[in-house]
């Protein structure tokens, strides 16, 4: 399989006549960490859900590594692309290990082999979940539950990983550990699209930044090109100062 990235063409979305995503055409490169940023309601979740085929778009096409999302069998896509949405509530009552094991479904269809058990064990370890593996999800703290959901997505071991605000609820150590994990996946040939609100995580870890506002992609490029004072101030309609640290932008949004 050639990793050609995610090619989005003429993709738009509307709910009851209200345009939520203006027709968008862009390519999200393979083998990179791409951060998707923008204010609340910009359409970041909408775009990532459309890529992950959670809802069918009214118009436009998405191809993940050459596979058209609308026409490729969903079982095949599940081995190309893993997705974790912004809202992670679950109706079913599951233990952490069982949730993470669901990540192996595209490979084993409910009949896990040794490879699948190993992948689950590794994901549990990677997200510090081994001591919690036997607990029910509804007994976990917010950050612990978030790590369990992340472990499930990572256990899917797909070339593409799409995460919508994965840092939600994570403490600073686990937040940094997650970004480091994503960087390792990228170094191993993986491709990642991640929605981030904390711009400094984008500045420090992303190779590529896509900025959205009001349903439109308004900027795209390396962090140093997108995370500038002018662009960010316009993006968020508020004055933002940008310094520099270790050769990368340092966004002083809290000041």
């Amino acid at each position, binding site marked *: 399989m050639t990793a050609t990235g995610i090619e989005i063409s003429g993709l738009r979305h509307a709910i009851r006549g209200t345009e939520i995503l203006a027709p968008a055409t862009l390519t999200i490169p393979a083998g990179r960490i791409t951060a998707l940023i923008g204010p609340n309601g910009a359409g970041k979740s909408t775009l990532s859900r459309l890529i992950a*085929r959670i809802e069918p778009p009214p118009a436009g096409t998405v191809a993940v590594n050459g596979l058209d999302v609308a026409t490729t069998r969903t079982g095949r896509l*599940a081995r190309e692309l893993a997705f974790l*949405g912004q809202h992670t509530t679950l*109706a079913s009552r599951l233990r952490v290990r069982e949730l993470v094991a*669901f990540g192996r479904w595209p490979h084993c269809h409910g009949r896990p082999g040794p490879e699948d058990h190993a992948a689950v064990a590794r994901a549990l370890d990677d997200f510090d979940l081994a001591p919690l593996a036997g607990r029910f999800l509804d007994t976990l703290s917010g950050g612990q539950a978030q790590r369990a959901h992340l472990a499930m997505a990572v256990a*899917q071991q797909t070339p593409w990983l799409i995460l919508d605000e994965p840092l939600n609820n994570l403490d600073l150590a686990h937040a940094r550990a997650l970004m480091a994990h994503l960087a390792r996946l990228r170094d191993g040939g993986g491709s990642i699209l991640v929605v981030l609100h904390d711009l400094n995580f984008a500045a420090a870890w992303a190779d590529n930044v896509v900025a959205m506002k009001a349903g439109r992609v308004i900027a795209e490029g390396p962090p140093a090109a997108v995370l500038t004072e002018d662009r960010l101030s316009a993006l968020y309609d508020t004055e933002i100062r940008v310094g520099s640290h270790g050769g990368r932008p340092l966004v002083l949004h809290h000041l």
Partner: protein
Amino acid sequence: MRPRTALVIALLLALAVALWLFQGLGPGNTRFVLGLRAAKLAALALVAASVGMATVLFQTVAQNRILTPAIMGFDALYLLIQSLAVATLGTVGFAMLPAGAKFAAETLLMTAVAVALFGALLGRAAPDAIGRTILTGVVLGILFRSGATLVARMLDPNAHAVVQAASFADFGRPAAGTLGWAAAVALPAMALALALGPGFDLLALGRERAVPLGLPHRAMVLITLALVALLTAVSTALVGPVAFFGLIVAGLAHALAPGARHRVLLLTAAALAATLLIGGQWAFERLLGLRATLSVVIECAGGIFFLALLLKGRIR
């Protein structure tokens, strides 16, 4: 589920079956009585398993633990179709229809309508789909029920009586003519439900989780609804509508087997339902001499259980 729980359920079920079949068996006519009892046992077991499995499946597809096919009006839909049949064919024509063909036609029609109505609601991604489904289902349930009543009112008194007789659950007198046909529909439906078990585990995660894992969500929703409709048609045809029985059974199954796979859940719900129904009917019919009372007691207990769920805030 712990093995001990499974063992206890199996033993209780065996006890209920044994009591039903052999208790008070006189010396004469043994074979005849046993034959009668076995036929009724088969009907009760079929109803129990159908209600139990249909409720578990529906709660999975609706992502909700207090909804049942009955609350959503599946059985009312069956009754409406039946009263319409009486209205168009007349009492005599209705009674003349061969039981099998009648059952098959009603079941097919009901399945088609249920899949069309609820499939449109549950198959999409909108986050408010569940809330809308609950409201729509409750409204549809009322609509079907009053539709059936309206049709019955417009019929002559004889026809009304035929419809009325079909509108109340009576575990004491399962419709004998339909048993074979009901089994022919229910058993393959149950086998399919068990075969699809792992798919239901995925479906239970909700669309946003199941689709990225490769579940053809829409197809799965439609298959589930068709299974629910078939199983509800079976139980309604055999004993009439049972509003809260499924709720008790599915609630117990989830409580006794927390977080279990759907194969286990479905079998647990079926076994619990059969135990309750056979044991309960034995106690009421043979011990208390109240053949037709069990349904009332179950509905009452189920109603209280439903309220308890609501008060505990388990409604979603």
